[in-house]
């Protein structure tokens, strides 16, 4: 096992990793930017080293300074947390060259899953369904019509170079196809200098469901169940739960099997998450694989009783998984609310600043992962996550009741937070019935009501 681990991150996840190391008897090194001198991770680690000025590009993404610190302080391994360098195959490779273990998958696996087209190809090869579409760009109307015939309507015409919804058209039937194709091509040409478009099946009100996997270096792969992550705002997850409410046992088993199959087929190691879209008919499609520990990992920990970060460290140290699939037991239901320093009254603009009062919730079934304390100043340079509140219950209703109770207890004075948004979601009748989909917040939550004082 490692003797000393450097945590190449900040905030709550750095604190989380330090906790896991301490329980395993591993010494820790925190690195920090000049904006994080008062960071909780700096206080908690056995050693701390400043690696740069506040901008992340010059500190938390500064590979030379992080590697130098690792070498100077004699660490055996680096945990990258999430974000920053967690999915940079170059960083994982540089660690390998420096004989410092990167706690995560191989650079090759990170690279393969980081490229969307390559990941899609590998998923198809592993027999995992992907969102149906044209194999490549469509050159003319005849080709488009043939693809549309195969994948069915509604479909999306998307610009190959696109992004942010530009060069994208929803097509409901054959009559609209030609016109949509032309418009999308023109728009794409104007916006991106390339008229190249492709077709993809349009999923109405899809759900975002992901499967957690763990794989050791000896080819053992297990899944730790799924997480429902449909509650999002502008593609940012807000609330996650495990297990996914209201899906059939058959879909659940198929999702788990598909995730394990993909991990096995690419020789994946360490913790990873396979993300799927699920439509109303319970068809599911692979969208991407995240090759890191995820923000929402505590909901899986709550229902399995495992410590995912410790498992990551054990796997990276070359240990064999200590349990097989049959040993993984799922108990109860867990929900996580990501509390951000954002102002719901002003279009969720960031609300950094000094936290004057901070009273996190507690009591039965409640866990809070945070780096914030009373007197701490939230710097404006990084993400706005203040705390992750996780509530566990014997069933979903109890988990919701506990979360509502916890959020009522939670007191943050000095900065605005998204607690009111979470309370609105939790009391929403559709949410309580488990009717969730990726545009839930947009459709079902009155954000203007939150803006009123």
């Amino acid at each position, binding site marked *: 096992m490692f003797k000393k681990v450097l945590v190449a991150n900040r905030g709550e996840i750095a604190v989380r990793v330090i906790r896991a190391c301490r329980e395993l008897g591993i010494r820790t090194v925190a690195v920090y930017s000049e904006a994080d001198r008062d960071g909780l991770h700096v206080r908690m680690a056995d050693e701390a*080293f*400043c*690696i*740069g*000025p506040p901008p992340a590009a010059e*500190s938390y993404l500064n590979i*030379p*300074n992080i590697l*130098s610190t690792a070498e*100077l302080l004699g660490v055996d391994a680096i945990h990258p947390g999430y974000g920053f360098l967690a999915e940079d195959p170059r960083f994982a490779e540089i660690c390998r060259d420096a004989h410092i273990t990167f706690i995560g998958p191989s650079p090759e696996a990170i690279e393969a899953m980081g490229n969307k087209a390559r990941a899609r190809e590998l998923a198809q090869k592993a027999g995992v369904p992907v969102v149906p579409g044209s194999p490549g760009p469509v050159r003319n109307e005849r080709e488009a019509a043939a693809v549309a015939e195969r994948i069915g309507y509604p479909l999306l015409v998307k610009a190959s170079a696109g992004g942010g919804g530009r060069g994208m058209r929803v097509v409901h039937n054959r009559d609209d196809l030609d016109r949509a194709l032309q418009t999308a091509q023109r728009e794409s040409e104007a916006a991106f200098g390339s008229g190249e478009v492709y077709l993809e099946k349009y999923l109405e009100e899809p759900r975002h469901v992901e499967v957690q996997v763990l794989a050791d270096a000896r080819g053992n792969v297990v899944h730790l169940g799924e997480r429902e992550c449909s509650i999002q705002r502008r593609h940012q997850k807000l609330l996650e739960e495990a297990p996914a409410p209201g899906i059939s046992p058959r879909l659940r088993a198929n999702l788990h099997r598909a995730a394990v199959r993909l991990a096995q087929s690419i020789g994946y190691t360490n913790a990873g998450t396979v993300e799927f879209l699920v439509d109303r008919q319970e068809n599911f499609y692979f969208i991407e694989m995240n090759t890191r520990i995820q923000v929402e990992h505590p909901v899986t920990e709550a229902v399995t009783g495992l410590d995912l970060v410790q498992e990551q460290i054990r796997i990276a140290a070359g240990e064999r998984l200590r349990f097989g699939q049959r040993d993984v037991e799922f108990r109860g239901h867990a929900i996580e609310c990501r509390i951000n320093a954002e102002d719901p009254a002003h279009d969720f603009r960031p609300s950094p600043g000094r936290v004057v009062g901070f009273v996190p919730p507690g009591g039965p079934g409640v866990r809070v992962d945070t780096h914030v304390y009373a007197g701490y100043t939230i710097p404006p340079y990084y993400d706005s996550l203040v705390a992750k509140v996780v509530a566990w219950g014997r069933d979903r209703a109890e988990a919701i009741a506990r979360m509502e109770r916890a959020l009522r207890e939670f007191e943050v004075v000095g900065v605005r937070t998204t607690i009111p948004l979470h309370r609105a979601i939790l009391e929403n009748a559709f949410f309580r019935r488990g009717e969730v989909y990726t545009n839930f917040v947009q459709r079902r939550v009155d954000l203007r009501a939150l803006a009123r004082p």
Partner: protein
Amino acid sequence: MSQDERRSLNFDEIRELVRIASEADITELEVEAGHLRVAIRKAPRSLNPAPAATAPAVPAPPPAPPPEAAEPPAHWVPVHAPMVGTFYRAPSPDQPPFVQEGDRVEPGQTLCIIEAMKMFNEIPSEVGGRVVRVLVENGAPVEYGQPLFLIDPHG
């Protein structure tokens, strides 16, 4: 023990000189013993206002604390480590240090080397002046932004 070492000053003697210099109404004191020369210059009291033109009506304030306990003068300029690495005072172990305390340096003159990722980075002084303190031991790891030297631009 060599002749020179016997005749040079020990730490307590230097401290005594500092005490004498700080209590006496002088700005500078130089003492030579063997081939060791100690120069003590009192820092201008930049944090205090300039003495008033007329004599104060109140008694003089108590004497300032001895210099070794005092904060470095505000006009001394720190040189910070621009990267994480190992601090070296000399270009190689068998060569003399780039600078010693008391040396005058020009802007752009190399003060030290920081080794990072097998590369030797020469760290220049941004200001001209006198090197009044070397704050880091040769061979020690330094973090980003750590003060390495203090330079007195008026020195």
